């Protein structure tokens, strides 16, 4: 509706505040640790300084160390407690960073004879795994004693390895072709071997040689599950027209299974990232990226084959902010070369340009997707799984046709309902006592995809009803559609939504419409709603009846009914009503008598007065009113009048039964 600015096309962008470090050069080696997400700039083997930049200032450190040869690998243990440096292919050196502990370096050689250390990974603040070409060795480090203890080791021929710090899983490439992958999981001093699996190669080389490159394999968690992603290049001999990404699901227990295939529809050089549970595939030659959502259902067979969610687009153009003392305010920022060959991509969402000294996080921008994805149902499925989806979803709600709005509401309310149910069962579980069962229930997490009635009211509906350019017909249709969807999902509709409906209808004089909605109980009964209706009586008299009916159905609003009737001077009606619901004995006589007196109808007053006297007689054996309680304001001055009338009165007067 009324888009003035051109639609934004780029749905990926680099983070605005990159981590900056001294770019790689002949004197400055740069290392990246995926576990702590730290960049190490090592000048002259550390002698002239090591600068560590992390995602936040806390994890940034600078120090010096002795130059004992070229650094091959350098990583802090978790929490920056111990620094491990590999300088040779046989051993790893350690330096304590814990205050009060001896700072002198200590060293550990790999246990396996003739083995070469390919690298190492910290799995805890004091646990480390050496990966050698002949196996893995799992150590515990004792910084106070400056020594290591071998916890476990495993012999296996290793071509290369990958580490997923999030899950502490190490993946080893074994066999001559390298396509048998052996994962190991680490947790609190234990190492467990997971089941190995085979990556299907497009061509089997003869004679056998290493055919699976480390560059084509990545590990990442997507929607809470660990996947091994294999970038399968197209091969002329296998007649596969384009490259694809094959996802192997790696469960904690059980066999690894090929689960998803992402069609890239092109060939060339690719790199993978995971952002917000989306698989992002960068294509260097076209300088564009694709995104895939493995949870978007594609009507397909056993292995889910996915097409890109959106058309290929490049990352949003990025200008490098000039930093440091050289910066001149008037100097414009330099455009950054995207998809540069000097880029290194790390999991899940990191892009590093070592030559320029930048580390970015890749981000998904959701607003442009609204215009790129025509199928709004699919768009909603896509958006609902994204982290910062709320405002985008809300923006979609009010700018579509009715069937689309209906689909959107249904999808939102499905998520909303699931959350409400989870919350409910959590509350029940908490109330019944946490002692029961070992599987203590976790409080359900409320993601941005949970869009409740108040969000909808605040961000969409209330402003929508005030927009002049939208016809009131459409506004009401949207409101009713939302109420329909809530009802369909058995979600209790909040009063303010009904109020909005009523307000809108009243504004456009659509009282008959309102009447019909109430007649079919579309607006559920409640005291506030009944009161709102009462207030409409002056402009729409039938609202009075609607309100009374509603109060009656509530069955907890007998006092209100009496008040309404008395205010209308329907004293006998009020009296009959309170009797019919059995409240006559406890009711205050005064308000009835006051109301009867205000009518100026003395017969009426007498009837009411007698009725209460009879009640008193029945309850207390005397017609007298209790002093102080329920005492009518009128006494003997008019008493005579009633005496005279008494002879004429019969139990039933006219059509009025008393």
């Amino acid at each position, binding site marked *: 509706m009324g888009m003035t600015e051109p639609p934004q096309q780029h749905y990926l962008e680099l983070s605005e505040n990159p981590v900056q470090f001294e770019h790689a050069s002949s004197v400055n080696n740069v290392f990246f640790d995926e576990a702590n997400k730290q960049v190490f700039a090592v000048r002259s083997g550390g002698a002239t300084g090591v600068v560590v930049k992390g995602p936040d200032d806390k994890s940034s450190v600078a120090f010096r160390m002795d130059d004992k040869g070229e650094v091959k690998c350098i990583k802090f243990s978790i929490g920056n407690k111990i620094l491990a440096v590999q300088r040779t292919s046989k051993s790893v050196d350690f330096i304590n960073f814990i205050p009060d502990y001896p700072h002198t370096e200590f060293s550990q050689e790999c246990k396996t004879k003739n083995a070469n250390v390919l690298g190492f990974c910290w799995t805890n603040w004091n646990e480390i795994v050496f990966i050698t070409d002949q196996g893995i060795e799992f150590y515990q480090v004792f910084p106070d004693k400056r020594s290591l203890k071998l916890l476990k080791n495993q012999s296996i021929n290793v071509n290369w390895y990958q580490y997923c710090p999030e899950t502490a899983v190490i993946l080893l490439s074994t066999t001559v072709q390298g396509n048998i992958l052996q994962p190991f999981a680490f947790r609190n001093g234990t190492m467990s071997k997971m089941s190995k699996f085979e990556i299907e190669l497009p061509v089997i080389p003869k004679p056998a040689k290493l055919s699976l490159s480390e560059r084509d394999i990545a590990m990442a968690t997507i929607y809470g599950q660990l996947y091994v992603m294999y970038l399968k290049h197209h091969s002329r001999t296998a007649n596969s027209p384009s490259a694809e990404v094959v996802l192997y699901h790696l469960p904690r227990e059980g066999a690894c299974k090929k689960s998803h295939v992402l069609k890239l529809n092109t060939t060339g050089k690719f790199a993978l990232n995971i952002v917000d549970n989306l698989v992002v595939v960068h294509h260097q030659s076209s300088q564009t990226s694709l995104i895939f959502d493995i949870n978007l259902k594609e009507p397909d067979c056993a292995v889910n084959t996915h097409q890109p969610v959106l058309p290929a687009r490049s990352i949003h153009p990025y200008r490098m902010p000039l930093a440091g003392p050289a910066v001149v305010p008037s100097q414009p920022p330099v455009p950054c070369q995207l998809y540069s060959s000097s880029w290194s991509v790390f999991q899940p969402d990191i892009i590093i340009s070592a030559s320029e000294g930048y580390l970015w996080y890749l981000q998904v921008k959701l607003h442009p997707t609204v215009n790129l994805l025509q199928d709004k149902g699919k768009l909603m499925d896509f958006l609902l799984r994204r982290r910062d989806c709320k405002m985008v979803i809300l923006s979609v709600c009010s700018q579509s046709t009715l069937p689309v709005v209906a689909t959107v509401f249904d999808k939102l309310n499905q998520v909303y309902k699931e959350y409400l149910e989870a919350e409910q069962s959590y509350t029940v579980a908490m109330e019944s006592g946490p002692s029961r069962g070992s599987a203590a229930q976790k409080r359900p997490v409320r993601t941005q995809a949970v869009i409740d009635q108040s969000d909808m009211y605040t961000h969409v509906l209330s402003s929508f009803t005030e927009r002049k350019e939208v016809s009131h017909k459409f506004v009401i249709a949207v409101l009713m559609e939302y109420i*329909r969807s809530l009802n369909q999902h058995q979600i209790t509709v909040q009063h303010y939504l009904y109020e909005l409906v009523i307000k809108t209808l009243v504004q456009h004089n659509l009282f008959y419409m309102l009447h019909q909605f109430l007649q079919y109980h*579309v607006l559920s009964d409640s005291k506030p709603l009944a009161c709102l209706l009462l207030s409409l009586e002056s402009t729409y008299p039938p609202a009075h*009846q609607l309100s009374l*009916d509603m109060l009656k159905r509530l069955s907890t609003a007998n006092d209100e009914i009496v008040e309404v009737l008395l205010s209308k001077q329907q004293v006998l009606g009020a009296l009959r009503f309170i009797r019919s619901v059995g409240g006559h004995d406890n009711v205050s006589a005064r308000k009835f008598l006051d109301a009867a007196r205000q009518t100026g109808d003395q017969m009426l007053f007498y009837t009411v007065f007698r009725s209460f006297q009879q009640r008193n007689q029945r309850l207390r054996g005397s017609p007298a009113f209790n002093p102080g309680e329920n005492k009518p304001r009128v006494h003997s001055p008019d008493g005579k009048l009633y005496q005279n009338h008494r002879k004429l009165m019969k139990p039933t007067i*006219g059509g009025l*039964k008393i």
Partner: protein
Amino acid sequence: MCSATSYKMASAMQEKQYTPSLLSFFIYNPTFGPREGEEEKKILFYHPSDIEKNEKIRNVGLCEAIVQFTRTFCPTKPAKSLHTQKNRQFFFEPEDNFWIVMVVRNPMIEKPNKDGKPPTIEYQEEEILDTVYGAVVRQCYSMYKLFNGTFGRAMEAGGVELLTQKLEKFFYRYLQTLHLQSCDLLDVFGGISFFPLDKMTYLKIQSFVNRVEESLSLIKYTAFLYNDQLIWSGLEQDDMRILYKYLTTSLFPRHSEPELAGRDSPLRPEVAGNLLHYGRFLTGPTNLKDPEAKFRFPKIFVTAEDGYEELHLIVYKAMSAAACFMISASVELTRDFCEQLDGLVGPQLTLLASDICEQFTINRRISGPEKEPQFKFIYFNHMNLAEKSTIHMRKTASVCLTSVHPDLMKILGDINCDFARVDEDEEIIVKAMTDYWVVGKKSDQRELYVILNQKNANLIEVNEEVKRLCATQFNNIFFLD
């Protein structure tokens, strides 16, 4: 017009009973022929038409005189009816100086005499109710207005000539459909029967209506009915009231035969795209595929902010669900539009109809099998015109059948008259000659009439019985006992 005759067997002698029937119906405007010799100009319509001119003039003159005379007593409320031994006349001035007069012959009993003497005729002057036939006259006008607009509108457009043409064209057919013998309290109410429905299904219908109105933006108003009962009206109440009357007493009965024929019905589902549907037009083209099909729809007049607006009335039905779509008459409706509507509405309405049917069956199962109750009732709410009757059978094109004796219906009418006189809530209990108890209750804007078949019950028991009825049938409304 021939009068319907029913026979009633009385002990030995054969009496012949005649129900009330229409004697004449005319419309005049006294200002059109104020001078002597020009009286005929006043008469705009006269039924029966074969009456001699002077008699017409005499009758009109008499009415004029009565109205004029009674005006001297109450200038704002001149006579509404004139009771005579043989007939009763009803006067109604719907627009300034335009008068509609209906003359109804009183019901009578013909008692044969012995010895070849001519039979004695006994007129039952008190058997018919002013309220009922007064309402019938008003309905005649409303129906005319629904299809033609006001008298004034015709005058503006084409003078007396056009007006008389229109009146002739409309009333010639309409009067044949008046069945005065079966008019009763329901005509006084002129209510609308609403289809009981759960909230969710109702919301689905809302959603359907809104979507159709969005995609076919020509549609200005929509009304939705199921089983001849109203579910949704986009029209204002008074317009809906008369349109409902037209639909349920004229249009639907004329089209009900194929459905009543049941399974062997010649109706074949239409195929739109790949969806089967049972939708068809009740107004306009009978067969869309017919290359000769005409896309003309009846036009109706409804109230608008500035007077009246003229609309095409499209009535489209699938199984028991009927949707009325109203489109400004200034738009010409084409084959394209009708095909589009058929393709869009047909499948959805078919689906909705089966949804409603299913929901209705479920609800009925929950509430238990319907037992023949001890009582029959008529309920009417002035606020929303909701009416419910267990006395009346299904309306057919010809007559509206009731399941109780006319005497009882008369009592109901009498009670209603009593209620109309006072503003307060009232309750009236009557024991009829035939041992039936008749109870009338009025609470705020609602009226309830109950007929109980318990001849040995006393007043207290009858009162209790009605209380029970209210508690079961009307527990969700505020209805004072």
